[in-house]
């Protein structure tokens, strides 16, 4: 029962607070039903987020595959800016991830234009977790990396809406391989350049052994000044 009168033209205050305000998930049902079918493009993927004192480095491979057994695209940009100083990786269902990014980007813009300041990264992570949990099943497992007044943050967001912050994190089918590199080389006073190098090395290791990852690397650097994304179709160029 509605607590507030339901007059035409008056804002419905009983709307679900977990739902996005602008984007509708209705047209996503087909994708959700498609489940693990081989026809749905998956990113397979290795995506890495590392925090440093000066910002966040995100590196992703460039392969899209069908069932992890056929390479359907060799030049996918799997990291996108969604906020003045934050980026999100695409991991899992391509359609789910793209829709997720569009939604977060518009919510972030709406928040900033209304309130005159950008959303904090923890608010953005909470919102992302709410959408992942509340929408149809997106089949995604992205990393959110960003910088705000509190400093540098990376979060991994799981398909059920779990949100976990860490100093560095990896998601995607190549995560175990990449983690090996990071466990050996990560330390908490990496410079941005060292973090970039490490992230590229870890993606490279994963592309060598994980069939769902490969074909080059995209590197995003996030600082208080913004997000910078560069693609390299061979690892020599990135190193």
């Amino acid at each position: 029962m509605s607590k507030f009168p339901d007059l035409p033209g008056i804002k419905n205050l009983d709307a679900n607070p977990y739902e996005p305000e602008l984007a509708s998930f209705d047209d996503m049902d087909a994708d959700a039903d498609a489940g693990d079918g081989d026809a749905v493009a998956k990113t397979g993927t290795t995506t890495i987020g590392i925090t440093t004192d000066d910002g966040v480095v995100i590196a992703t491979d460039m392969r899209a595959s069908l069932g992890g057994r056929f390479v359907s695209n060799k030049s996918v940009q799997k990291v996108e800016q969604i906020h003045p100083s934050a980026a999100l990786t695409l991991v899992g269902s391509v359609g789910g991830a793209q829709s997720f990014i569009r939604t977060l980007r518009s919510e972030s813009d709406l928040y900033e234009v209304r309130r005159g300041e950008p959303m904090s990264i923890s608010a953005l992570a909470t919102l992302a977790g709410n959408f992942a949990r509340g929408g149809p099943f997106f089949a995604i497992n992205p990393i959110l990396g960003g910088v705000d007044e509190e400093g540098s943050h990376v979060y991994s967001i799981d398909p059920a809406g779990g949100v976990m912050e860490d100093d560095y994190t990896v998601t995607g089918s190549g995560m175990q391989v990449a983690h090996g590199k990071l466990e050996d080389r990560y330390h908490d006073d990496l410079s941005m350049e060292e973090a970039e190098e490490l992230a590229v090395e870890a993606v490279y290791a994963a592309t060598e052994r994980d069939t769902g990852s490969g074909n080059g690397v995209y590197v995003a650097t996030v600082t208080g000044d913004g997000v910078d994304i560069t693609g390299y179709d061979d690892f020599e160029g990135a190193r």
Partner: protein
Amino acid sequence: MQGQNQQQAYDRGITIFSPDGRLYQVEYAREAVKRGTASVGVRTADGVVLAADRHARSPLLERDSIEKIHKADDHVGIASAGHVADARQLIDLARRQAQVNHLRYDEEIGVESLTKEVTDYIQQYTQTGGARPFGVALLVGGIEDGEPRLFETDPSGTPYEWQAVAIGGDRDEIQTFLEEEYEEEMGLEAGLSLALRALGSVSDDGLDATGVDVATIDVESEQFTALSEDEIAERVTELELEGDDDE
């Protein structure tokens, strides 16, 4: 309709402008606010003070049942003037929107954002057929990013930000008093005194501690704190605002 009746017709519907561009129903709602007892807000360097006149018309009425100052969220208080029942609806809206912000972003809502949620809602009642505007004005005070903020809402749905402000009965007189006495650098205790003195300035037979409601939201704790009757009485006595009993 002809002659005089034609003038009157413009106040029949909320969605109808008069030929000189006025919304009579909104102006009537402002009159309803003036019929309410006054509320005062003072923003100081280290917090916001809300004070309200809640004197009872009968000694038999339970004082606590007169609602003038409300907690909206831990860090925001709202004082009202005008129709109490209308105020209750808006305060519930503010409380819900504060919680929606917690749910969506896991953050406290800003005082400005919260005020605008409320005023946007009020505005819809000046443009929707079959509705009547809210006959109430609110003072929304709290802490945002460590800074004290104080806003007013009016029946048109316009938000205003103030250093010190009065709403309700005797608004103009109290506002003049505040304009003369307000100092930007004053602390919370000085702001509290100013708010009480401002309310007392329009009371012929002095201020009665049981007839005043006071709350603060300070920068230190960022918590809404209602003052007890004793705490108010202490200050009323100190400021010599009580009336002369033998008058």
